């Protein structure tokens, strides 16, 4: 059923009786052309674009829990293309462009909301670093603006400009950046992929790979073996665990990143703000909760939860930046398992084992990448060659030295 104002009206009048499942809860078939492991945003988007752009419909997305139970369902929803390095910036800008038409394409309101993201700077050196970034963005066709303190004050007068330990000097603004409703992105892609014939198989964990003569020809799952022409991994925080079953060691560590939401409030802040002198960033959901987060907890973890020091650190940053939030309350805290890569940038590549394709290493930044990741991964799977904007995301870059290290911290994942 197509969603529209009319469909809502009709159902409102008939007691909501006509709604159909947004996607079929499929049972696995014995074989597919492509099996995608991981029903997060990336896996589902990949399936959708495989069907939509490349005409490959005999596709299954295999998800161990419910779709969106991974990082897609627990991120702080920020979408932006304010990257620095040539390997990254065009890719994220392509993603931004896909976001801009996504809802109409999927017929699903994912609440893509371009309310702007403002990265604050507190020193001349930081300003210059943001200028470098802003210019790199412009080169890639993205929008960026370098604001001074006066302009920032006009946007957010309540920030602590005067009494701050690290006074705010200005910010880098990307107007077209913003947020999207994370779950709706998952559901929208799932529904659209399902409509194109993709099987979405939930509660089905991949536990191993089927091999023939060194090639991967399918997966073992908790619901039986499934053969596949190609197997594509998009399991984010579980990348090492799943790849290990194919005998691979990856340049990835799994770390916990926490996020937080406050009680619901009338509008407090419109866009997204990141603090430049500590670990804190914040936006407000359409429901009214302040959604905020900070740095990763900093140690390998699959526990999907974090500890107090980071929570305190985030709150300290929040109070330093916006002392008006002191009496607001943190409602819920949770964690996600981040596939932190060794240079902080992702991998979209064929695996060293034939038949296997890799999409991993998104760190804390893969939500915004969802459309482009799906697009480029589908391209790679369908054509066996990388998409132009994802050409730098090779697995062998660590060997060759063509790193994409935005922060310049080197092979230390917990610092990216």
């Amino acid at each position, binding site marked *: 059923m197509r969603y529209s104002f009319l469909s809502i009206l009709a159902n409102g009048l008939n007691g909501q009786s006509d709604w159909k499942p947004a996607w079929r809860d499929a049972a696995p078939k014995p074989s597919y052309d492509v099996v995608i492991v991981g029903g997060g945003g990336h896996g589902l988007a990949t399936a959708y674009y495989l069907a939509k752009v490349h005409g490959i419909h005999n596709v299954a997305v295999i998800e161990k829990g419910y779709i969106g139970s991974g990082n897609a369902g627990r991120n702080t929803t920020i979408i932006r293309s304010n990257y620095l390095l040539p390997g990254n910036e065009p890719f994220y800008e392509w993603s931004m462009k896909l976001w801009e038409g996504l809802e109409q394409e999927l017929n699903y309101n994912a609440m893509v909301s371009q309310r702007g993201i403002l990265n604050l700077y507190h020193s001349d050196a930081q300003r210059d670093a943001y200028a470098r970034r802003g210019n790199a963005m412009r080169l890639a066709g993205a929008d960026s603006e370098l604001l001074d303190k006066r302009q920032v004050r006009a946007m957010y007068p309540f920030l602590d400009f005067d009494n701050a330990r690290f006074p705010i000097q200005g910010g880098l603004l990307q107007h077209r950046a913003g947020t999207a409703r994370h779950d709706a992105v998952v559901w929208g892609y799932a529904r659209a992929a399902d409509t194109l014939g993709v099987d979405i198989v939930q509660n089905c964990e991949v536990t191993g790979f089927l091999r023939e003569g060194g090639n991967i020809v399918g997966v073992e799952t908790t619901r039986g073996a499934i053969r596949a022409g190609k197997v594509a991994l998009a399991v984010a925080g579980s990348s090492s665990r799943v790849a290990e079953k194919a005998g691979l060691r990856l340049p990835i560590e799994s770390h916990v990143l926490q996020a937080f939401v406050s009680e619901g409030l009338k509008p407090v802040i419109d866009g997204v703000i990141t603090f430049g002198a500590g670990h804190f960033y914040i936006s407000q959901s359409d429901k009214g909760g302040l959604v905020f987060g900070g740095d990763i907890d900093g*140690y390998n973890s699959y526990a999907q939860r974090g500890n107090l020091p980071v929570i305190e650190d985030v709150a300290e940053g929040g109070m330093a930046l916006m002392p008006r939030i002191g009496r607001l309350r943190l409602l819920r805290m949770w964690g996600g398992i981040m596939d932190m890569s060794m240079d902080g940038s992702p991998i979209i590549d064929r695996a060293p084992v034939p038949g296997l394709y890799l999409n991993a290493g998104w760190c804390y930044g893969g939500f915004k990448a969802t459309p482009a990741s799906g697009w480029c991964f589908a391209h790679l799977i369908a054509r066996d060659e990388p998409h132009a904007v994802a050409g730098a995301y090779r697995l062998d870059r660590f060997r060759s030295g063509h790193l994409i290290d935005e922060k310049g911290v080197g092979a230390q994942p917990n610092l990216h």
Partner: protein
Amino acid sequence: MRIPCPYCGERDAHEFSYLGDATLVRPDPAAVDAQDSALADRFHDYVYLRDNPAGAHREWWYHANGCRQWVRVTRDTRNHAIAGASLAREPGDAA
């Protein structure tokens, strides 16, 4: 999370800084001819590849705000339970 520093006693993890996998061994540059690409491969594996297990993980923590010792900790990455810790200079098995 509390890390049992062998010298200082149990301390909150925020006093430490974390480095990661403590099973990695820096390749011996003298063992292979310096021009040998095998050396580059070994360094690549050492610097970049990780087992990243879900389970027992032997890892380095530096007690930066304490005794400034590197501590080898065995911790379960699924539940953060710590099985043991030893100082880098002690050969001891952590678990």
